[in-house]
């Protein structure tokens, strides 16, 4: 499986009345064909801005100022709007959180579905319509032939999200970005949509960037996970390592603060004190400093880098604590060497 997407240290900035604001800072990750990465974090951590940066869908006052985004070796950061239009919807497509507002209320489902199909696949009107019906059936919409001619307001939230998925997958994209696709839906509908996405994923080998704040969804869907905090990736690893052996104090705090139905009865939730720092006033050192139970003097002054943990290349973390661990690890290795010699 080849590498499909490589996001390398991108920095996204917005021009505002109060000056330049960095919303995403040094975010890096890569994705292979058919793989699913989850971006997790709380509101304002930059997970949505990261995906909009990839899609060139930032507001006019925002731009990617550093770093590169390679899709199949093609640089996306400096791509012109005309070139980008060929990529968007065709190679990368996106599903949004609000299925209520992301469909145009004055066009029929069919009109909206066939637009991309005709543009990117060169189908005739009739072919496109047949294909659209086929896609609707694939995402589990009953009476697909009738629904094509209906307007979005006739559908429920879950059905609209299915239409969005049909639309996103119709041009067989290599990469699907799903921004909180189930957050606005009820749990029983969420379960339906997640099941559908799993099925389509194994069928089409589409790589997925799934943005969510729900660790339950992460555990269901992800191959790997990037935990984001205040515009940075603080921990990145495969999903099993993340849940079995989380390292970053923020990830640890997040895991302990979810009330879940499998928790024991009398367990008191641990909460992370304080709140996320403001983008106008980012701390100089580690951004989690004032909420971190393990904060050291060093964290206030120095910026930690995202580094892989010694023997596991696939587990990276942005924290000095781990460096201590690394030091101990090396000291131990050295001790062992001395003993051997």
């Amino acid at each position, binding site marked *: 499986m080849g590498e499909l997407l490589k996001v390398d240290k991108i920095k996204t900035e917005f021009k505002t009345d109060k000056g330049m604001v960095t919303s995403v800072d040094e975010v890096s990750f890569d994705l292979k064909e058919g793989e699913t990465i989850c971006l997790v974090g*709380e509101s304002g951590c930059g997970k949505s801005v990261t995906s909009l940066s990839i899609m060139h869908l930032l507001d006019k006052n925002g731009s990617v100022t550093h770093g590169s985004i390679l899709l199949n070796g093609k640089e996306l950061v400096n791509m012109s709007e005309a070139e980008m239009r060929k990529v968007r919807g065709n190679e990368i497509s996106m599903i949004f959180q609000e299925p209520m507002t992301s469909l145009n209320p004055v066009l029929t489902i069919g009109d909206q579905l066939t637009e991309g199909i005709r543009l990117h696949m060169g189908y005739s009107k009739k072919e496109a319509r047949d294909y659209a019906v086929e896609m609707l059936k694939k995402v589990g919409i009953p009476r697909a032939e009738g629904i094509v001619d209906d307007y979005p307001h006739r559908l429920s939230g879950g059905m609209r999200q299915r239409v969005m998925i049909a639309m996103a997958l119709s041009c067989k994209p290599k990469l699907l970005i799903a921004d909180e696709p189930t957050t606005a839906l009820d*749990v029983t509908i969420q379960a339906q949509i997640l099941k559908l996405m799993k099925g389509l994923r194994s069928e089409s080998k589409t790589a997925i960037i799934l943005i969510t704040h729900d660790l339950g969804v*992460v555990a269901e869907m992800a191959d790997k996970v990037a935990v984001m905090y205040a515009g940075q990736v603080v921990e990145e690893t495969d999903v099993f390592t993340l849940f079995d052996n989380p390292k970053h104090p923020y990830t640890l705090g997040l895991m302990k*603060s979810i*009330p*879940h*139905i499998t928790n024991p*009865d009398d367990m008191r*939730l641990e909460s992370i004190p304080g*709140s996320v720092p403001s983008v106008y006033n980012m701390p100089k050192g580690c951004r989690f400093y004032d909420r971190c139970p393990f904060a050291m003097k060093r964290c206030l002054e120095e910026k930690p880098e995202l580094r892989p943990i010694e023997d596991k290349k696939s587990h990276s973390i942005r924290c000095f604590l781990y460096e201590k661990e690394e030091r101990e690890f090396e000291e131990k290795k050295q001790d062992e060497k001395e003993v051997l010699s």
Partner: protein
Amino acid sequence: MEVKNLKKYYPIKKGIISKTVGYVKAVDDVSFSIYPGETVGLVGESGCGKSTTGRSLVRLEDPTSGQVIFEGKDLASISKKEMRELRTDLQIIFQDPYSSLNPRKRIGDLLAEPLLAHKLASKAEAAEKVNHILETVGLSKHYKNRYPHEFSGGQRQRIGIARALMLHPKLIICDEPVSALDVSIQAQVLNLLKDLQKEFNLTYIFIAHGLGAVKYISDRITVMYLGKIMEMAKTKEIFEHPMHPYTEILLNAYPVPNPHMRDREQIVVEGDVPSPAHPPKGCVFHTRCPFAKDICREKVPELNGTDHLIACHFPLSQ
């Protein structure tokens, strides 16, 4: 508090003379009781009537019929004036901390307002109380001169809680108090609510769609679907031995934060919640229930049981 056969129907009007053509049965024949000092969780999907039930209990909605008996008085039938007096005992915390605070008032004034409106304190006394209550909910008393927009979502929700506490209420209805907050902040607010309950001996009705939060805070849980109670029992019972197929399905639908369990067997129900304007005949859940039989399509199941109440013709065996 005891709720008996509470109903709230919204008329559907059509045409120029606004003829009533039907009713949306938002809450349909709901009965339950709440004991002092306990927390009752109301759960269900959107449109199941949980918020309408909560709002009807404090007369923010006038119930169509039924009784809400609170300390010997029927809240559903007393006059507005009497209700106003009782409001000091009954408070509500809303879901959206952004829209429930008046943006043009300072925090101190917002908090003092209920006291002054009920003529329970002089201005000086009220100011004193504001300082105290802000500290109780974990905010600095210096915040009282600020405006709501200067606060984060979590802090605003604390202010909402502080406002509800100002009058020393006996019962607080928490209408999705943590749904709009981030997870790390949710835990802070849930812990605060738990601590306050112990300190002031409060009774809560906790409305939420997140089962995790409901389990964490509730003593008993009521599961609602399409305006009706499906199951009601102690929290432990509901989670360990759910007897209604809907409860089982709801519990099952929650994604488990454990990747080793991702391949577990899962019953995924098909279809959507039917419209409350045209609820199905018989058991309201029969259209989506995997165990539905002929009788479910015909006869409405009664809510039966003593401690563990359930409305189903074929309850799941233990």
